[in-house]
């Protein structure tokens, strides 16, 4: 009888213990981080590079024993660079795959449609190089890894540099596409605020290949600086047209928002035509930009990138993918859980060390301070991608804290 009672107790205790152990064991499963990424379509080159950055972080953290002691697993779907694909993908990640954390896809267009979804469900979303995507939605758990900072800081950096070298007038030229138009509008506002006169303003259709008429018009307007908001094919077309026609000796500063000049393939093919251009960037192999872990990261990235036939330099996006992971890691460790509210609180109120430098966020989830670089191409020779691995090819002029040289102006002089 007694033994039977003990037996029953043992069984009950055993059952309770098993019941308690089950959720604990479930928690020991991997932490799933879900995202879509443009792996095909127009944004694929950037998407693949960004993904390698995130994968390097995943492998590093798993090597160290995981996040909160659990292995990290990435679930990635291809959004084909399209806005139409992402709502269904993110709902699959949340409702079917039951991921623990969300990363946003690379770029603004695929990210925009998922903002309302994450706001509705009150989830943490780590942004990946989108531009002002939280402006309308105003989600308080959005944190963008991009260095942009406040919307106007980009144009402000460029215009300040121009004004320091004596520029009083500006020409504005940009593609009729989402990002370029955003940037152009902001640049115009900043110019008005600073009393810089806009003497020429032109938008062109995205498929434009012939820029000689526009270059002639800029030349005729005799602008002191030229702010360009272009996409890779037009960036190339414009620089070629300038090389043939010349932009005139009045121009002190040329560039600003030219997308494409950060990618190894474009940089290699443009070669010496890049000299003198002052353009935005996110990370560069200059002495001032070496932080803890940066060197080790690029050693790993570049090995994988060559195998995957992705941008061999990977300066523009990849380290920021890694930084995204580092920030999540610090937030989760501080919260001692994956509690998204606690993690968001941490991300909002702390400065985090990453391989791209310290990152702190403002109330809108964008960087508190802009870390967008303005750098001038110098001494670039033709057909040599390896030269860009060395410091001195892109001199950082802005922001002040990472400055590695002075502006060479006028533009024509810097091109020689």
């Amino acid at each position: 009888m007694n033994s039977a009672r003990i037996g029953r107790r043992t069984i009950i205790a055993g059952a309770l213990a098993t019941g308690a152990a089950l959720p604990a064991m479930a928690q020991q499963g991997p932490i799933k981080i879900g995202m879509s990424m443009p792996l095909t379509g127009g944004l694929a080159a950037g998407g693949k590079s960004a993904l390698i950055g995130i994968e390097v972080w995943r492998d590093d953290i798993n090597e160290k024993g995981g996040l909160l002691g659990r292995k990290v697993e990435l679930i990635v779907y291809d959004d084909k660079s399209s806005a139409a694909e992402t709502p269904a993908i993110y709902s699959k990640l949340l409702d079917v795959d039951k991921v623990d954390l969300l990363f946003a896809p690379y770029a603004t267009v695929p990210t925009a449609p998922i903002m309302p979804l994450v706001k509705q469900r009150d989830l943490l979303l780590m942004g990946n190089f989108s531009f002002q995507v939280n402006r309308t939605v105003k989600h308080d758990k959005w944190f963008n890894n991009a260095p942009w900072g406040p919307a106007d800081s980009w144009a402000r950096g460029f215009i300040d540099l121009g004004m320091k070298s004596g520029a009083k007038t500006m020409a504005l030229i940009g593609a009729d596409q989402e990002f370029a138009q955003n940037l152009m509008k902001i640049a115009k506002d900043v110019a008005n605020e600073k009393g810089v006169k806009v003497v020429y303003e032109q938008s062109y259709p995205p498929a434009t290949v012939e820029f000689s008429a526009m270059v002639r018009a800029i030349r005729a307007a005799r602008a002191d600086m030229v702010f360009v908001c272009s996409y890779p094919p037009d960036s190339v077309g414009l620089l070629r047209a300038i090389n043939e026609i010349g932009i005139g000796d009045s121009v002190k500063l040329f560039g600003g928002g030219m997308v494409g000049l950060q990618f190894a393939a474009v940089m290699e093919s443009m070669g010496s035509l890049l000299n003198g251009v002052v353009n935005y960037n996110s990370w560069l192999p200059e002495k001032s930009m070496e932080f803890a872990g940066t060197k080790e990261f690029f050693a790993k990235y570049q090995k994988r990138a060559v195998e995957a036939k992705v941008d061999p330099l990977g300066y523009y996006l990849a380290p920021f993918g890694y930084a995204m992971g580092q920030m999540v890691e610090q937030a989760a460790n501080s919260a001692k859980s994956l509690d998204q509210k606690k993690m968001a609180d941490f991300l909002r109120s702390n400065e985090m060390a990453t391989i791209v430098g310290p990152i702190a966020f403002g109330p809108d989830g964008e960087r508190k301070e802009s870390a967008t670089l303005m750098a001038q191409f110098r001494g670039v020779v033709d057909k040599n991608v390896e030269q860009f691995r060395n410091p001195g090819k892109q001199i950082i002029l802005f922001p002040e804290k990472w400055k590695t040289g002075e502006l060479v102006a006028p533009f024509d002089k810097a091109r020689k």
Partner: protein
Amino acid sequence: MTGRGVWFWIGAALFIALAVALALVVRNEYVFFAGFVILQFIVLATAWNILGGYAGYVNFGTSAFFGIGVYTAIFLLKAFSAPLLVQIGVAAVVGAAMGLGIGLLTLRLRGIFFSIATVAITIIAETLIINWKFVGGATGVQMLRPPVTPPFDSYIKMLFVVLAILVVIAVALARYVQDSKLGRGLRAVRDDEVAAESCGVPTLNLKLVACAISGALMCAAGAPSAMYLQFADPVSAFNLNYSVSALAMSLIGGTSHWIGPVLGAILLGSTQQLLTVTISSEINVLVLGLMLVLFVVAAPEGIIGLVRRLWRRVGKGSP
């Protein structure tokens, strides 16, 4: 109403009832996100087939109509905070008017020349929107949805049911066109337009009506898409993918019967959704391409043609 008609409407009522039941019972929202896209393609493919299938006028302008539908909804929301049903209704009217206008300009062209003209329409429409700052211009626009209407507990479920109703309207219209005098006239146009004209078929008028119906449905499908994404930019809204998919779905399903585009859209639409979350790389584009080639070679009349051939064989008792 004929016996077939009764069955059709019973089927349609069951379909809507199922959609409502799903929306009220199922909690997993992915079903509705993926289902929305498939239903949207059923409307687009059915609309495409009215002109492209029945009359044989291959139209690449689906994305133009779809995009205008998206932007009509955005305009109404921004200017008047119009509710969803008003957005869809007005988009349908705009689409019909656009169909008539564009039809008048292009339907005198035939064959490949008509098709090329319809590609241009997308480019023109996209350029117009790029330069219209009120609806966001080239930068695109983000919107916040109005609150959801009970009994639905989330907006996506409501959109799913609205789309299911739109599917029934589109299919009923296509079915009506197919069996009516209009449909017979359009088939005559497809077989030999000159002969039809000489027999007294008012070919241009019939084509215009078909173009207007088709345009109205395409625009109506675009309007809820604005609320689905809550974001629109011209490149996404006028994406050529809508034109190509609508055409491919009709061809794969079969263009001679209203059920063809429905089957094609379900097959291709679900395959696309499935591949996105399974293979998820360049290979999914390849799989779709192969599927198209396979159908064009092995079943030139689509699934319907394939079934008919099998049916005939069984009927004849041959192996």
